[in-house]
Protein backbone atom coordinates (compact mmCIF):
# COMPACT_ATOMS: atom_id res chain seq x y z
CA UNK A 1 0.00 0.00 0.00
CA UNK A 2 1.36 3.36 -1.02
CA UNK A 3 0.47 6.55 0.87
CA UNK A 4 -0.65 9.66 -0.99
CA UNK A 5 2.11 12.13 -1.86
CA UNK A 6 3.23 14.63 0.72
CA UNK A 7 5.91 17.24 1.28
CA UNK A 8 8.61 16.01 3.63
CA UNK A 9 10.42 18.34 6.00
CA UNK A 10 13.13 17.51 8.48
CA UNK A 11 12.93 19.76 11.52
CA UNK A 12 16.36 20.85 12.75
CA UNK A 13 15.14 21.91 16.17
CA UNK A 14 11.89 22.59 18.02
CA UNK A 15 11.65 26.20 16.78
CA UNK A 16 12.06 24.96 13.21
CA UNK A 17 9.37 22.29 13.74
CA UNK A 18 6.95 24.92 15.07
CA UNK A 19 7.69 27.19 12.14
CA UNK A 20 7.05 24.35 9.67
CA UNK A 21 3.77 23.47 11.42
CA UNK A 22 2.65 27.09 11.60
CA UNK A 23 3.35 27.72 7.89
CA UNK A 24 1.40 24.65 6.80
CA UNK A 25 -1.98 26.11 7.65
CA UNK A 26 -2.94 23.09 9.73
CA UNK A 27 -2.24 20.64 6.90
CA UNK A 28 0.96 19.18 8.37
CA UNK A 29 1.40 16.23 10.69
CA UNK A 30 4.30 15.58 13.03
CA UNK A 31 6.21 12.41 12.19
CA UNK A 32 7.70 10.88 15.34
CA UNK A 33 7.90 7.05 15.52
CA UNK A 34 5.32 6.85 12.75
CA UNK A 35 3.96 3.51 13.94
CA UNK A 36 0.36 4.79 13.96
CA UNK A 37 0.65 7.59 11.40
CA UNK A 38 2.31 5.62 8.60
CA UNK A 39 -0.22 2.74 8.68
CA UNK A 40 -3.04 5.32 8.58
CA UNK A 41 -1.37 7.00 5.61
CA UNK A 42 -0.92 3.66 3.84
CA UNK A 43 -4.63 2.95 4.23
CA UNK A 44 -5.17 6.55 3.07
CA UNK A 45 -7.32 7.15 6.13
CA UNK A 46 -5.24 10.28 6.45
CA UNK A 47 -3.50 12.22 3.68
CA UNK A 48 -1.51 15.05 5.25
CA UNK A 49 -0.14 17.62 2.79
CA UNK A 50 3.17 17.57 4.60
CA UNK A 51 5.08 15.75 7.32
CA UNK A 52 7.39 17.40 9.81
CA UNK A 53 9.94 14.77 10.82
CA UNK A 54 11.09 15.50 14.39
CA UNK A 55 13.32 12.43 14.72
CA UNK A 56 16.51 14.44 14.12
CA UNK A 57 15.85 16.94 16.91
CA UNK A 58 18.37 16.36 19.67
CA UNK A 59 17.17 16.74 23.24
CA UNK A 60 13.62 15.59 22.50
CA UNK A 61 14.27 12.15 23.93
CA UNK A 62 15.56 11.00 27.27
CA UNK A 63 14.47 10.29 30.81
CA UNK A 64 15.43 12.57 33.70
CA UNK A 65 14.41 12.66 37.34
CA UNK A 66 14.58 16.24 38.41
CA UNK A 67 12.20 16.70 41.35
CA UNK A 68 9.67 15.15 38.98
CA UNK A 69 10.07 12.58 36.22
CA UNK A 70 10.60 14.20 32.83
CA UNK A 71 10.28 12.06 29.73
CA UNK A 72 11.21 13.53 26.37
CA UNK A 73 8.34 13.11 23.91
CA UNK A 74 10.57 11.32 21.39
CA UNK A 75 11.64 8.64 23.86
CA UNK A 76 11.12 5.23 22.24
CA UNK A 77 8.96 2.64 23.95
CA UNK A 78 11.87 0.17 23.95
CA UNK A 79 14.01 2.66 25.88
CA UNK A 80 11.22 3.36 28.38
CA UNK A 81 10.75 -0.35 28.92
CA UNK A 82 14.42 -0.93 29.71
CA UNK A 83 15.13 2.23 31.69
CA UNK A 84 16.33 1.41 35.24
CA UNK A 85 14.85 4.56 36.87
CA UNK A 86 11.45 3.79 35.39
CA UNK A 87 11.71 0.12 36.30
CA UNK A 88 12.56 0.85 39.92
CA UNK A 89 10.47 3.88 40.70
CA UNK A 90 7.65 3.98 38.13
CA UNK A 91 6.93 0.31 37.34
CA UNK A 92 3.45 1.22 36.05
CA UNK A 93 5.21 2.85 33.07
CA UNK A 94 7.30 -0.28 32.48
CA UNK A 95 4.07 -2.33 32.60
CA UNK A 96 2.60 -0.01 29.99
CA UNK A 97 5.54 0.30 27.59
CA UNK A 98 6.01 -3.48 27.63
CA UNK A 99 2.52 -4.12 26.23
CA UNK A 100 2.52 -1.49 23.48
CA UNK A 101 2.26 -3.37 20.15
CA UNK A 102 5.30 -5.67 19.71
CA UNK A 103 9.08 -5.36 20.27
CA UNK A 104 9.79 -4.23 16.68
CA UNK A 105 7.17 -1.50 16.80
CA UNK A 106 8.50 -0.45 20.22
CA UNK A 107 11.94 0.15 18.70
CA UNK A 108 10.40 3.05 16.73
CA UNK A 109 7.23 4.07 18.58
CA UNK A 110 7.47 7.02 20.96
CA UNK A 111 5.63 7.89 24.17
CA UNK A 112 4.82 11.36 22.83
CA UNK A 113 3.25 9.87 19.74
CA UNK A 114 1.27 7.39 21.82
CA UNK A 115 -0.26 10.33 23.72
CA UNK A 116 -0.58 12.91 20.94
CA UNK A 117 -2.25 10.41 18.59
CA UNK A 118 -5.01 10.19 21.22
CA UNK A 119 -6.27 6.82 20.14
CA UNK A 120 -8.41 5.59 23.06
CA UNK A 121 -6.91 2.14 22.39
CA UNK A 122 -3.38 3.41 23.05
CA UNK A 123 -1.89 2.35 26.37
CA UNK A 124 -0.11 5.40 27.79
CA UNK A 125 -3.13 7.72 28.07
CA UNK A 126 -4.77 5.71 30.88
CA UNK A 127 -1.46 5.35 32.70
CA UNK A 128 -0.80 9.08 32.46
CA UNK A 129 -4.30 9.78 33.82
CA UNK A 130 -3.52 7.50 36.77
CA UNK A 131 -0.11 9.12 37.29
CA UNK A 132 -1.62 12.63 37.28
CA UNK A 133 0.90 13.59 34.61
CA UNK A 134 1.08 16.78 32.60
CA UNK A 135 2.38 17.35 29.10
CA UNK A 136 4.48 20.23 27.88
CA UNK A 137 3.58 21.78 24.54
CA UNK A 138 5.60 24.31 22.58
CA UNK A 139 4.16 26.47 19.84
CA UNK A 140 4.33 29.87 18.17
CA UNK A 141 2.99 31.47 21.33
CA UNK A 142 5.51 29.80 23.61
CA UNK A 143 5.36 26.94 26.04
CA UNK A 144 2.45 25.72 28.12
CA UNK A 145 1.93 22.88 30.52
CA UNK A 146 -1.33 20.97 30.01
CA UNK A 147 -2.68 18.80 32.84
CA UNK A 148 -3.42 15.34 31.47
CA UNK A 149 -7.11 15.65 32.46
CA UNK A 150 -7.42 18.50 29.94
CA UNK A 151 -5.38 16.88 27.17
CA UNK A 152 -7.63 14.27 25.53
CA UNK A 153 -10.63 16.02 23.98
CA UNK A 154 -11.99 13.27 21.73
CA UNK A 155 -10.85 10.30 19.68
CA UNK A 156 -7.66 11.36 17.83
CA UNK A 157 -8.14 14.89 19.19
CA UNK A 158 -6.04 16.60 21.85
CA UNK A 159 -5.70 20.08 23.29
CA UNK A 160 -2.61 20.63 21.10
CA UNK A 161 -3.02 23.52 18.66
CA UNK A 162 -2.02 22.96 15.01
CA UNK A 163 1.26 24.81 15.53
CA UNK A 164 2.10 23.08 18.81
CA UNK A 165 4.32 20.12 19.40
CA UNK A 166 4.35 17.89 22.45
CA UNK A 167 7.89 18.04 23.83
CA UNK A 168 7.83 16.46 27.28
CA UNK A 169 5.77 14.46 29.74
CA UNK A 170 6.06 15.35 33.43
CA UNK A 171 5.13 12.97 36.18
CA UNK A 172 5.04 13.89 39.87
CA UNK A 173 7.60 12.23 42.09
CA UNK A 174 6.07 9.13 43.68
CA UNK A 175 4.79 9.79 47.20
CA UNK A 176 5.96 7.52 50.02
CA UNK A 177 3.88 4.31 50.24
CA UNK A 178 2.57 4.71 46.69
CA UNK A 179 2.49 2.19 43.89
CA UNK A 180 0.87 1.55 40.55
CA UNK A 181 0.19 -1.08 37.94
CA UNK A 182 -1.15 -1.37 34.39
CA UNK A 183 -2.98 -4.52 33.34
CA UNK A 184 -4.11 -5.18 29.79
CA UNK A 185 -6.17 -7.96 28.28
CA UNK A 186 -5.39 -8.48 24.61
CA UNK A 187 -6.49 -11.13 22.14
CA UNK A 188 -2.93 -11.72 21.00
CA UNK A 189 0.46 -10.08 21.28
CA UNK A 190 0.61 -6.76 19.51
CA UNK A 191 -3.12 -6.15 19.49
CA UNK A 192 -4.89 -3.21 21.04
CA UNK A 193 -6.52 -3.84 24.41
CA UNK A 194 -9.91 -5.49 24.76
CA UNK A 195 -9.71 -3.33 27.86
CA UNK A 196 -6.91 -2.24 30.17
CA UNK A 197 -6.71 -0.55 33.55
CA UNK A 198 -4.08 1.70 35.10
CA UNK A 199 -4.22 2.13 38.88
CA UNK A 200 -2.15 4.21 41.29
CA UNK A 201 -2.64 4.11 45.05
CA UNK A 202 -1.11 5.92 48.00
CA UNK A 203 -1.42 4.27 51.39
CA UNK A 204 -1.51 6.04 54.75
CA UNK A 205 0.58 4.85 57.68
CA UNK A 206 -2.10 2.41 58.78
CA UNK A 207 -2.16 0.80 55.33
CA UNK A 208 -5.50 2.30 54.26
CA UNK A 209 -5.85 3.87 50.82
CA UNK A 210 -5.27 7.61 51.20
CA UNK A 211 -5.74 8.30 47.50
CA UNK A 212 -6.24 6.32 44.30
CA UNK A 213 -6.36 7.20 40.64
CA UNK A 214 -7.63 4.95 37.89
CA UNK A 215 -7.47 5.20 34.10
CA UNK A 216 -9.24 2.97 31.57
CA UNK A 217 -8.06 2.04 28.06
CA UNK A 218 -10.21 1.40 24.97
CA UNK A 219 -13.63 1.57 26.61
CA UNK A 220 -14.70 5.02 25.41
CA UNK A 221 -14.02 7.85 22.99
CA UNK A 222 -10.91 8.73 24.98
CA UNK A 223 -9.05 7.11 27.83
CA UNK A 224 -11.36 7.46 30.83
CA UNK A 225 -10.58 8.50 34.38
CA UNK A 226 -12.79 6.43 36.71
CA UNK A 227 -13.37 9.11 39.34
CA UNK A 228 -16.14 7.29 41.19
CA UNK A 229 -13.93 4.26 41.58
CA UNK A 230 -11.20 6.51 42.97
CA UNK A 231 -13.68 7.98 45.47
CA UNK A 232 -14.93 4.62 46.70
CA UNK A 233 -11.38 3.66 47.65
CA UNK A 234 -10.52 6.77 49.67
CA UNK A 235 -10.01 5.92 53.35
CA UNK A 236 -10.71 2.23 52.81
CA UNK A 237 -8.56 -0.72 53.74
CA UNK A 238 -7.63 -2.44 50.45
CA UNK A 239 -9.70 -5.54 51.21
CA UNK A 240 -11.84 -7.63 48.84
CA UNK A 241 -14.96 -5.62 49.62
CA UNK A 242 -13.34 -2.24 48.83
CA UNK A 243 -11.77 -3.62 45.66
CA UNK A 244 -15.08 -5.11 44.52
CA UNK A 245 -16.79 -1.74 44.99
CA UNK A 246 -14.04 0.01 43.04
CA UNK A 247 -14.27 -2.59 40.27
CA UNK A 248 -18.02 -2.06 40.00
CA UNK A 249 -17.60 1.73 39.91
CA UNK A 250 -14.91 1.49 37.20
CA UNK A 251 -17.14 -0.83 35.14
CA UNK A 252 -19.93 1.74 35.44
CA UNK A 253 -17.57 4.48 34.22
CA UNK A 254 -16.59 2.46 31.13
CA UNK A 255 -18.46 3.19 27.91
CA UNK A 256 -17.42 0.31 25.67
CA UNK A 257 -19.01 -0.56 22.36
CA UNK A 258 -19.42 -4.04 20.92
CA UNK A 259 -16.90 -4.79 18.19
CA UNK A 260 -14.53 -7.50 17.00
CA UNK A 261 -12.85 -7.50 20.42
CA UNK A 262 -16.06 -8.50 22.17
CA UNK A 263 -19.51 -7.39 23.27
CA UNK A 264 -19.85 -4.26 25.41
CA UNK A 265 -21.04 -6.19 28.48
CA UNK A 266 -18.03 -8.46 28.33
CA UNK A 267 -15.63 -5.50 28.09
CA UNK A 268 -17.33 -3.82 31.04
CA UNK A 269 -16.81 -6.97 33.05
CA UNK A 270 -13.16 -7.11 31.98
CA UNK A 271 -12.80 -3.58 33.37
CA UNK A 272 -14.40 -4.70 36.64
CA UNK A 273 -11.96 -7.59 37.04
CA UNK A 274 -8.82 -5.80 35.80
CA UNK A 275 -9.52 -2.84 38.11
CA UNK A 276 -9.46 -5.10 41.15
CA UNK A 277 -6.31 -6.87 40.00
CA UNK A 278 -4.54 -3.60 39.15
CA UNK A 279 -5.37 -2.10 42.55
CA UNK A 280 -4.20 -5.26 44.30
CA UNK A 281 -0.89 -5.11 42.42
CA UNK A 282 -0.56 -1.36 43.04
CA UNK A 283 -1.08 -1.91 46.78
CA UNK A 284 1.53 -4.69 46.82
CA UNK A 285 4.00 -2.38 45.11
CA UNK A 286 3.14 0.47 47.52
CA UNK A 287 4.16 -1.90 50.30
CA UNK A 288 7.49 -2.52 48.59
CA UNK A 289 6.57 -5.72 46.77
CA UNK A 290 6.41 -6.44 43.10
Amino acid at each position, binding site marked *: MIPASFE*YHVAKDIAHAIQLLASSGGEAKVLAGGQSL*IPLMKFRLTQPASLVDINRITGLSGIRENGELQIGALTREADLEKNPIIRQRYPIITDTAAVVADPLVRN*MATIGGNLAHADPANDHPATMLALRASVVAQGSKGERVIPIDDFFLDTFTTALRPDEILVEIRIPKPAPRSGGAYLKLERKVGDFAIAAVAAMVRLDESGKIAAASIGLTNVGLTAIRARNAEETLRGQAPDDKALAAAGAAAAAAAQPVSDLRGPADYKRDVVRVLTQRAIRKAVARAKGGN
Partner: protein
Amino acid sequence: MAVETAPAATTTGPKLRRIHVTVNGTAHDVDVEPRTLLVHFIRENLGMTGTHIGCDTTSCGACTVLLDGRAVKSCTLFAVQVDQSSISTVEGLEKDGKLHPLQEGFHQEHGLQCGFCTPGMMMTAVGFLATNRSPTELQIREAISGNLCRCTGYVNIVKSIDYAARKLREPIEGKA
Protein backbone atom coordinates in the same frame (compact mmCIF):
# COMPACT_ATOMS: atom_id res chain seq x y z
CA MET B 1 26.56 5.85 -7.69
CA ALA B 2 25.54 8.87 -9.72
CA VAL B 3 21.87 9.65 -9.90
CA GLU B 4 20.60 12.63 -11.84
CA THR B 5 17.75 14.64 -10.44
CA ALA B 6 15.36 16.10 -12.97
CA PRO B 7 15.19 19.90 -12.63
CA ALA B 8 12.11 20.70 -10.56
CA ALA B 9 11.00 23.63 -12.73
CA THR B 10 10.57 21.55 -15.87
CA THR B 11 8.76 18.54 -14.49
CA THR B 12 5.34 17.87 -13.08
CA GLY B 13 6.48 14.59 -11.52
CA PRO B 14 6.85 14.03 -7.82
CA LYS B 15 9.49 15.96 -5.94
CA LEU B 16 12.39 13.66 -5.21
CA ARG B 17 14.75 13.76 -2.30
CA ARG B 18 18.35 12.55 -2.29
CA ILE B 19 19.20 10.17 0.51
CA HIS B 20 22.54 8.77 1.55
CA VAL B 21 22.22 5.38 3.16
CA THR B 22 24.61 2.56 3.94
CA VAL B 23 23.14 -0.89 3.34
CA ASN B 24 25.17 -3.87 4.52
CA GLY B 25 28.27 -1.69 4.45
CA THR B 26 27.76 -0.29 0.95
CA ALA B 27 26.92 3.40 0.58
CA HIS B 28 24.10 4.43 -1.76
CA ASP B 29 22.97 7.86 -2.88
CA VAL B 30 19.49 7.58 -4.31
CA ASP B 31 16.69 9.98 -5.19
CA VAL B 32 13.35 8.85 -3.76
CA GLU B 33 9.84 10.13 -3.42
CA PRO B 34 9.12 10.99 0.23
CA ARG B 35 6.26 8.49 0.26
CA THR B 36 8.51 5.58 -0.75
CA LEU B 37 8.48 3.05 2.05
CA LEU B 38 11.83 1.71 3.21
CA VAL B 39 10.88 -1.84 2.22
CA HIS B 40 10.08 -0.72 -1.34
CA PHE B 41 13.32 1.24 -1.49
CA ILE B 42 15.30 -1.84 -0.47
CA ARG B 43 13.48 -4.21 -2.81
CA GLU B 44 12.88 -1.99 -5.84
CA ASN B 45 15.51 0.75 -5.83
CA LEU B 46 18.33 -1.46 -4.57
CA GLY B 47 17.00 -4.74 -6.01
CA MET B 48 17.54 -6.61 -2.76
CA THR B 49 14.54 -8.90 -2.46
CA GLY B 50 15.62 -10.83 0.65
CA THR B 51 13.53 -8.43 2.72
CA HIS B 52 9.95 -9.63 2.30
CA ILE B 53 6.59 -7.90 2.30
CA GLY B 54 4.06 -10.00 4.17
CA CYS B 55 1.08 -8.24 5.66
CA ASP B 56 2.12 -4.68 4.74
CA THR B 57 0.23 -3.56 7.88
CA THR B 58 2.91 -3.55 10.63
CA SER B 59 1.80 -6.94 11.93
CA CYS B 60 3.92 -9.76 10.51
CA GLY B 61 7.56 -8.63 10.71
CA ALA B 62 8.59 -10.28 7.40
CA CYS B 63 10.07 -6.91 6.36
CA THR B 64 12.27 -6.53 9.45
CA VAL B 65 15.67 -4.89 8.92
CA LEU B 66 18.14 -3.28 11.28
CA LEU B 67 18.19 0.51 11.39
CA ASP B 68 21.42 1.56 13.11
CA GLY B 69 21.36 -1.81 14.87
CA ARG B 70 17.71 -1.80 15.95
CA ALA B 71 15.20 -4.19 14.42
CA VAL B 72 12.34 -2.28 12.78
CA LYS B 73 9.51 -3.02 10.37
CA SER B 74 10.62 -1.52 7.06
CA CYS B 75 7.03 -1.34 5.78
CA THR B 76 6.35 1.27 8.47
CA LEU B 77 9.16 3.69 7.76
CA PHE B 78 9.76 6.05 4.88
CA ALA B 79 13.05 5.70 3.04
CA VAL B 80 13.68 9.44 3.54
CA GLN B 81 13.74 8.81 7.29
CA VAL B 82 16.87 6.65 7.03
CA ASP B 83 18.95 9.33 5.30
CA GLN B 84 22.50 9.20 6.74
CA SER B 85 21.70 5.91 8.49
CA SER B 86 22.95 2.37 8.33
CA ILE B 87 20.67 -0.49 7.32
CA SER B 88 21.33 -4.22 7.61
CA THR B 89 19.32 -6.75 5.65
CA VAL B 90 19.40 -10.52 5.45
CA GLU B 91 21.74 -10.31 2.43
CA GLY B 92 24.43 -8.94 4.73
CA LEU B 93 24.45 -11.87 7.16
CA GLU B 94 26.67 -14.20 5.14
CA LYS B 95 30.32 -13.13 5.20
CA ASP B 96 32.98 -14.50 2.81
CA GLY B 97 30.88 -17.52 1.96
CA LYS B 98 30.41 -18.35 5.63
CA LEU B 99 26.92 -18.46 7.09
CA HIS B 100 26.08 -16.18 10.00
CA PRO B 101 25.45 -18.17 13.22
CA LEU B 102 21.74 -17.41 12.84
CA GLN B 103 21.66 -18.81 9.32
CA GLU B 104 23.57 -21.81 10.55
CA GLY B 105 21.08 -22.15 13.43
CA PHE B 106 18.06 -22.05 11.12
CA HIS B 107 19.78 -24.67 8.94
CA GLN B 108 20.77 -26.99 11.79
CA GLU B 109 17.50 -26.75 13.72
CA HIS B 110 15.14 -26.74 10.73
CA GLY B 111 14.04 -23.21 11.61
CA LEU B 112 12.12 -22.72 8.38
CA GLN B 113 9.38 -24.47 6.47
CA CYS B 114 8.12 -22.20 3.67
CA GLY B 115 10.83 -19.65 4.53
CA PHE B 116 8.77 -16.53 3.99
CA CYS B 117 9.11 -15.20 7.54
CA THR B 118 12.74 -16.29 7.84
CA PRO B 119 14.58 -13.08 6.81
CA GLY B 120 12.48 -11.09 9.28
CA MET B 121 12.92 -13.66 12.00
CA MET B 122 16.69 -13.65 11.52
CA MET B 123 17.02 -9.86 11.47
CA THR B 124 14.87 -9.56 14.59
CA ALA B 125 17.10 -12.14 16.24
CA VAL B 126 20.29 -10.31 15.20
CA GLY B 127 19.01 -7.14 16.85
CA PHE B 128 17.84 -9.04 19.90
CA LEU B 129 21.01 -11.09 20.45
CA ALA B 130 23.06 -7.89 20.31
CA THR B 131 21.26 -6.78 23.48
CA ASN B 132 20.92 -10.17 25.18
CA ARG B 133 23.73 -12.69 24.75
CA SER B 134 22.24 -15.39 26.96
CA PRO B 135 18.49 -15.30 26.47
CA THR B 136 16.04 -17.69 28.08
CA GLU B 137 13.50 -19.47 25.91
CA LEU B 138 10.81 -17.08 27.17
CA GLN B 139 12.92 -14.05 26.26
CA ILE B 140 13.45 -15.43 22.74
CA ARG B 141 9.71 -15.99 22.40
CA GLU B 142 9.02 -12.43 23.54
CA ALA B 143 11.66 -11.06 21.17
CA ILE B 144 10.01 -12.65 18.12
CA SER B 145 6.47 -11.78 19.21
CA GLY B 146 6.30 -9.18 16.43
CA ASN B 147 7.13 -11.78 13.78
CA LEU B 148 4.51 -14.17 12.47
CA CYS B 149 5.27 -17.62 11.04
CA ARG B 150 2.16 -18.89 9.27
CA CYS B 151 3.64 -22.38 9.09
CA THR B 152 3.55 -22.01 12.91
CA GLY B 153 7.07 -23.38 13.09
CA TYR B 154 7.89 -21.43 16.22
CA VAL B 155 9.41 -24.29 18.22
CA ASN B 156 12.25 -24.75 15.76
CA ILE B 157 12.65 -21.00 15.21
CA VAL B 158 13.22 -20.60 18.95
CA LYS B 159 15.72 -23.48 18.88
CA SER B 160 17.51 -21.88 15.91
CA ILE B 161 17.91 -18.57 17.73
CA ASP B 162 19.10 -20.38 20.84
CA TYR B 163 21.63 -22.24 18.67
CA ALA B 164 22.91 -18.92 17.33
CA ALA B 165 23.08 -17.42 20.83
CA ARG B 166 25.24 -20.32 22.00
CA LYS B 167 27.39 -20.15 18.87
CA LEU B 168 27.89 -16.39 19.25
CA ARG B 169 29.00 -16.85 22.89
CA GLU B 170 31.45 -19.63 22.03
CA PRO B 171 34.58 -17.68 21.08
CA ILE B 172 34.56 -15.59 24.25
CA GLU B 173 33.62 -18.45 26.52
CA GLY B 174 36.23 -20.61 24.82
CA LYS B 175 38.97 -18.20 25.89
CA ALA B 176 37.79 -18.02 29.49
